[in-house]
């Protein structure tokens, strides 16, 4: 099976063409055009990427299997957790969001539920304390901001 490299090669050729076309749309820099304008280097890259992607399509390597089944879902869960962690970092505050994110990741990787969330909470509190007091970097407190010492 050699689909991976072929599909990737096609995608990269599309990228190379789009990138090269993008470069042709650059405005001429102030002061007139020079020997090497802003578009020259991108053109070179587009050509090299296009040619090497073509090679991938013609001579692809054997595929690595993609994790479709359950493992695939676990991966999607992990990415969603990371995105939610990012989204909730400021509203919920560092400690709560870290407890949830690290806890969920530990749990999905095989730790028991209580252990996972305790790990998350301890890690969150410890890192928060180190950063806020030892390193002087303010991490958001969010919902816990009432704890803030004036």
């Amino acid at each position, binding site marked *: 099976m050699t689909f*991976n*490299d072929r599909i*990737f090669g096609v995608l*990269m050729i599309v990228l*190379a063409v789009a*990138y090269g076309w*993008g*470069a042709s749309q*650059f*405005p001429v*820099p*102030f002061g007139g055009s*020079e*020997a*090497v*304008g*802003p578009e*020259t*280097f*991108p053109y070179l*890259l587009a050509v*090299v*990427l296009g040619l*090497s*992607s073509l090679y*991938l399509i013609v*001579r692809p*390597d054997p595929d*690595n299997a*993609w*994790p479709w089944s359950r*493992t695939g879902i*676990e*991966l999607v869960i*992990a*990415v969603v957790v*990371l*995105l939610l*962690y*990012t*989204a909730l*970092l*400021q509203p919920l505050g*560092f400690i709560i969001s*870290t407890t949830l*994110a*690290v806890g969920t*990741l*530990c749990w999905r*990787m*095989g*730790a028991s539920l209580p252990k996972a969330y305790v*790990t*998350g909470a301890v*890690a969150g509190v410890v*890192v928060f304390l180190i*950063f806020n007091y030892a*390193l002087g*970097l303010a*991490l958001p407190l969010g919902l816990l901001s009432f704890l803030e010492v004036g």
Partner: protein
Amino acid sequence: METLGYLMDGFAVALAPHNLMFALLGAFLGTLIGALPGLGPANGVAILIPLAFTLGLQPETALIMLTSVYAGAMYGGRISSILLNIPGDEPAMMTCLDGYPMAQKGKAAEALAISAVASFMGSLIATIGLILLAPLLADFALTFGPAEYFALFLLAFATLGGITGKNPVKTVVAACIGLMIATVGIDTTGVQRYTFNVLELYEGVDFIIAIVGLFAISELLFFIEDKAGGGKEKMTVNKLTLSWKDIREIMPSSIRGGILGFIAGVLPGAGASLGSFIGYTLEKKIVGKKGYFGQGDPRGVAGPEAGNNGASSGALVPMLTLGVPGSGTTAVLLALLISLNITPGPLMFTQNADIVWGVIAALLIGNFLLLVLNIPLVGIFVKLLSVPPMYLLPIVTMIAFVGIYSISNTTFDLYFMVAFGVAGYVLRKLEIPLVPVILGLLLGPEMEKNLRHAMDISDGDWTVLWNSGLAIGLWVFAGLGLILPYIVGPILRRRMKVATGTGGPESD
């Protein structure tokens, strides 16, 4: 003699109490990073860069700390090779061959101590080599014009996969992707390129975000996929009984390994993996039938381990003198230099002499610290090894988040990091190497600048790029770097496979 004077100044920098403290901290963290599964040296150094900024460290202090981390990670890699038969990173692979059998025979403590001594010797030899060679190379590099630099960058990309690399075309694709990302932002003539009018993209893509995402986040995803959360069975460490005689016996192996490793590290395209591989095979040849390689011969631990450490110090030579890194970890160190506003290359030796020589002195001091740390404290590192990855990796991920968040206090960067992580996972699945992507990101602006300079000088004549003998030589080597893997690569790879395949009974 001039060099000696600089080196003394370097020691003055490196021995300043706070620098020494950070060197110690770095050495400790580095050993930890090297020892823990799923945290390669490149990955570990990358995560620590934003933290070094947060601490508001002086450039030389930050660089000294992270160089110690780098040196420490090479030490740490051997711990999991010997105790678990899992190499912490690729170059540590050869250490498994005799280290793990030694541990199985109940000589884990001896294997660890021998490898520490050998690592020390390898690094020491290579650091001395670095002190001798780097100023010469830096002087030579001053004669490089923009065309030569352009060719040199090409050479760096072409040889990055190494002659043992699998598919050079994939290296080229990866390098293009990295260089393309580097063109995002406002260029030197003030033209916006590929910013899509997103304000955050005007200044380009911060390579630290890219590096942390590509390495740390994709590693987490790989661990989840492999369901490796539980970790492996731990080996018990016996009480150390090592005599001076044992140390004397491994000395010749360590010295040979160190010298070979250094050469492999300096040469483009060879790298630490080849250094430790040559170190091992040479030992096997020299010792011949008298040895019992593969069954726990101490010299089989010392040779590759010295080679591995020699190569990692040797790899600093092209990075410091030419600004062209030869490995993933040195690429990350280059990222640190660029973000500290230090332009690596020959001029650094004159303009930032205190920093360069401070770092080199720190490398020497770091080695002593590591030797002292490693023999008595090995028990602590072994304990930490038994922390299962299911707890470790989420925490590492969280630290990566904190580090990136601390750069600009915005969540935009974090989304970007996650995106890079997913991209890194996909690329690794396709066996597209990540290091060229990062190198492309780092070298892109310099490469384009040199191309522009060369063309401005020649008034648009492209032949200027291969007009001098030096430039032609660099082009030829770059070409060889791409072609040789097809010719020599399969043979070398097969040999390395045969060698490692017969290693442990359960090698994976």
